[in-house]
């Protein structure tokens, strides 16, 4: 049981950042400040669980709807509401007018001209552009939802960036195999080297193993990078706010509270920047990996 009297308790702090089955809202809106997410399955009995060496690494599969699932759907709806009308305007062939149109089109064109085309090559880039656009804006909206009060950042739970990285991995391997052939893609992982036959027999399987391992690690790190950035930012914010609670009973509160608020505000600005930066990095690295798979070496 977490000690809720200690504001710096790890479980308590991480509980504010991690996924949950409720939204934390002011007490005026819900009893005990927790707005429960409606469930399709009443029981919280796990349907299936998995035992892994690290305790608690894989949570049970229980079909319970969580906050982050709701936020992902909300984010997806926001993207549809933003981009479908925009598409109708752009299709008409008019020139961009208004802030929103220019803002969104600038980002779309940046991804196309500065990310997709340099990394994949102009000819192939357009095939992967829908994927890259979706990745960028989905990650971005998930990151930005973390800056909305009482919401949270779905990218702060490993399942989200993990699933997205698996998507990128699938596209990379799928695109590579579609372009080079299933055998060509995997043998292409070993760079061409002029080796004596005996050495080649020895070295090439090892290099192959390293390269394939590298392929998996690259995508794993892709997920961890996004997760770490989002989670760390929100944890730091939680700690800064926790200072207020920790000093609430002493006179230091007078100095700590404004400092914490100022610090949290400044860090929130940084978080806004990080939200865009990490979405860009995720999209950019996805494009790079696709480019490497489609044009090896």
């Amino acid at each position: 049981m977490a000690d809720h009297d200690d504001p710096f308790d790890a479980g308590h702090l991480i509980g504010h950042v991690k996924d949950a089955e409720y939204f934390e809202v002011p007490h005026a809106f819900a009893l005990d400040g927790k707005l429960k997410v409606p469930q399709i399955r009443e029981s919280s009995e796990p349907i299936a669980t998995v035992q892994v060496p690290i305790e608690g690494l894989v949570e049970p599969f229980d079909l319970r709807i969580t906050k982050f699932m709701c936020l992902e759907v909300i984010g997806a709806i926001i993207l549809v509401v933003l981009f479908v009308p925009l598409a109708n305007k752009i299709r008409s062939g008019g020139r961009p007018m208004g802030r929103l149109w220019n803002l969104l089109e600038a980002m779309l064109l940046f991804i196309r001209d500065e990310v997709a085309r340099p990394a994949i090559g102009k000819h192939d880039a357009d095939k992967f552009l829908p994927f890259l656009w979706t990745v960028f804006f989905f990650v971005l909206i998930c990151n930005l939802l973390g800056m909305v009060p009482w919401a949270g950042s779905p990218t702060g739970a490993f399942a989200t960036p993990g699933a997205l990285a698996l998507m990128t991995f699938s596209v990379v391997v799928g695109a590579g195999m579609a372009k080079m052939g299933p055998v060509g893609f995997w043998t292409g992982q070993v760079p061409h080297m002029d080796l004596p036959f005996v050495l080649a027999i020895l070295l090439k399987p090892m290099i192959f193993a390293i390269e394939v391992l590298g392929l998996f690690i690259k995508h794993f790190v892709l997920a961890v990078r996004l997760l770490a950035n989002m989670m760390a930012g929100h944890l730091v914010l939680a700690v800064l706010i926790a200072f207020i609670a920790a000093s609430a009973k002493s006179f230091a509160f007078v100095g700590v509270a404004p400092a914490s608020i100022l610090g949290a505000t400044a860090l929130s600005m940084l978080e806004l920047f990080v939200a865009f930066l990490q979405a860009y990095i995720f999209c950019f690295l996805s494009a790079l990996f696709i480019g490497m798979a489609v044009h090896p070496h």
Partner: protein
Amino acid sequence: MKTLLNILAIAAILVGTSSLALAADEPAGGHDATTAHAADGHGHGAEGHAEPNTNPLSIDPDLAICTAIVFVLLLLFLGKFAWRPIMAGLEKRESSIAENIQAAEESAAKAAQQLEQYEKRLAAAAEEASQIVANAQREAETRRQQIVAEAEAAAAKERERAIEDIKIAKNAALSQIAEASVNTAVGLASNIVRREIKASDHSQLIKDALDQFPSRN
């Protein structure tokens, strides 16, 4: 696009099955573990007061599957209703801008060419005009000289005729004066003679005078 969708569909299935496989691994393993876990997670969701999972890397298979489904649906939906039209629209706008620029360049080149032509033509026209003026001046000069010469010739001719006329008139006048003076002399002489000549002499004189007539005419 189609291959991409196929790949993603496979990816979604992969995420789902791998999470499910991970999750389903356990019940196949042993019933004891399952029940133990069930017991563990007993109070887990209901009140949210259970020991929270503090592992920041913990994976919720439900969330992973949900993310994959939301992502693939979003990709499909936006791909059809947003990304394709946007790509086509941007392409259209770019090509129309490129066409406009090319057309503008072409018309500028054409305009420059025309300007050059017109300038050439204008220069030629100016040249021609000055030629025409010069010709006209030359002609006018010639004509003037001609007219002057003609006028001078005519004037000279007129004067000559006038001089001739004057000469004739003078001669006539002189002969008239001579006649008149002869007549006067004759009249005077006859008056003088009539008083001293007698009738015979008179007829003789008439006869002489009559003789003289034919020779006078």
